[in-house]
């Protein structure tokens, strides 16, 4: 036996001055100060771009909860963005402008949808699970196209952002900080969940579901609840996205959008707290930058992602930890 190994090694708190902590702190600091930069330089484009990063990062955080920690690879996660977005859009069109009504509806509708999808898909595994989540998302996509009253294929313009009393979301900076708060809040939420009793059941189930049942866990119901939490969280991100663009359309839920979310999570690092944020930022900035250089950004983005998938086990987060494959 190698008695020289410190048994506390793997349980040591991660908040030491590792490259990872320094890097993460820097990112959060930059994001926190971005509106100041934008105000000083008058550069609103950067602020708009980063607002989008924050929102999609929140969506990626929710996907990471089920995919990274729970091993449930949902290929229909963009459906929640659409449901949350359409909840805001439809209510706004029907004259209900209050965010206190719109946002809870966005969250509840997404949670309900997740409950139905999860109840069916979580009885399967692997490829079948992926296919069922994709099939449901496609269904919702076509439902949205069929909503003639709400723009159908062309989408629906939202004339006024959600009303929250004295908080004015039409102010760019205010809206940015709201998105920032939602993102940090969801990261904190996930951090608490994955280390709680519930979270360990989810992680155990990802690692070895058969063993979980053998030691006495009815794992299905825990996985289902986790799936619903992630759906609700992503629905909130959808409500933010609709407010951000003042527009919702079926394109929001196209299956390639679900693919983008998976890429963000994998790129940043599966099952890490800040991985989804790093992944979303990298993905969206790369996409933005490349689309200026070339007409075909995917031609470069594709190989980059391939390299990450092959060489970086654990995504960018893993790289910061010095964890590499092979």
């Amino acid at each position, binding site marked *: 036996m190698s008695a020289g190994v410190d*048994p506390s090694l793997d349980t040591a708190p991660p908040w030491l001055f590792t490259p990872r902590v320094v890097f993460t702190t820097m990112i959060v600091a930059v994001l926190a100060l971005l509106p100041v930069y934008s105000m000083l330089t008058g550069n609103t484009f950067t602020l708009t771009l980063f607002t989008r990063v924050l929102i999609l990062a929140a969506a990626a955080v929710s996907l990471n909860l089920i995919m990274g920690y729970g091993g449930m690879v949902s290929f229909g996660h963009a459906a929640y963005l659409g449901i949350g977005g359409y909840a805001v859009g439809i209510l706004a069109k029907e004259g209900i402008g209050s965010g206190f009504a719109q946002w809870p509806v966005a969250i509840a509708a997404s949670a309900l949808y997740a409950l139905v999808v999860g109840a069916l898909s979580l009885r399967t595994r692997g490829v079948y699970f992926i296919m069922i989540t994709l099939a449901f998302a496609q269904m919702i996509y076509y439902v949205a196209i069929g909503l003639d009253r709400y723009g159908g294929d062309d989408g629906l313009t939202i004339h006024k952002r959600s009303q929250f009393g004295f908080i004015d979301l039409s102010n760019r900076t205010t809206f940015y900080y709201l998105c920032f708060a939602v993102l940090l809040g969801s990261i904190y939420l996930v951090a608490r969940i994955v280390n709680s*009793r519930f979270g360990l059941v989810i992680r155990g189930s990802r690692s070895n579901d058969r*063993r979980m*049942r053998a030691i006495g866990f009815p794992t299905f119901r825990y996985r289902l609840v986790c799936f619903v939490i992630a759906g609700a969280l992503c629905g909130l991100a959808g409500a933010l996205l609709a407010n951000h663009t003042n527009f919702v359309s079926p394109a929001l839920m196209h299956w390639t959008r679900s693919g983008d979310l998976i890429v963000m999570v994998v790129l940043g690092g599966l099952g890490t707290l800040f991985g989804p944020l790093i992944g979303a930022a990298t993905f969206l900035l790369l996409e933005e930058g490349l689309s200026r250089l070339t007409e075909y950004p995917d031609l470069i983005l594709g190989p980059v992602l391939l390299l990450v998938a092959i060489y970086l086990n654990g995504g960018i987060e893993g790289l910061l930890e010095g964890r590499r494959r092979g």
Partner: protein
Amino acid sequence: MAEPLLLITGLTKRFGGVTAADAITLGIPAGEVHAVIGPNGAGKTTLIGLITGEIAPQDGAVRFDGGDITRLPVYRRNRLGLARSFQITSLFSDLTALDNVSLAVQAHRGHSFRFWRDARGENELRQPALAALDRVGLAERAGLKVAKLSHGEHRQLEIAMALATGPRLLLLDEPMAGMGPDESARMVRLLRQLKGGVTILLIEHDMEAVFALADRLTVLVYGRIIASGDPAAVRADPAVRQAYLGEKENKDKRGG
């Protein structure tokens, strides 16, 4: 006479054309160590699966502690006091040894819909888990991730997890599989300590271990019980010698 702790009657399971369990009837009274031996493919692991509920039988019944559990799901049976270890190590490899056992403890401390508190800080889970690790001699390795433990330690951890659920019947599927002689000897010592406190159904190829531990012995061939009873008597049974022990001895001779 009181009903044994575990009572299997007429249990039958066919996979396609293969009968893995052929009307198996077996009773294990509380406190007994009951070994099941048989050549590869005799249906030993299937038998454990049928008892734990991972495999549904086509016919027959399983009774535990006086109640019919034939139709209960795996986790419910575990809660009644039925725990198993796996032949092929089956652990949560990205968690620490202590986390693994803590999860087993947690499964028996009410529901786990607790989303906020850090489960690794809960003494209610960690103390019993450490005690179970200590019992199998792994206390010093508690903080290591499973992936960093040796094969023998994995086998010990398997037992610790089964123990942590507080079982009354322990189903051990080849606990010595792949172990060296030293590790095997340690495992035999460990199982001997458990003897009396918990009822054990032991599947094992290591004959030395079987005869050192078992109160009774059942021989399974092609899903059918060909002999069952006192180990010495079973060993002397000509049918057994021909079907299993003899074959094994020949193999050993050939092997060296």
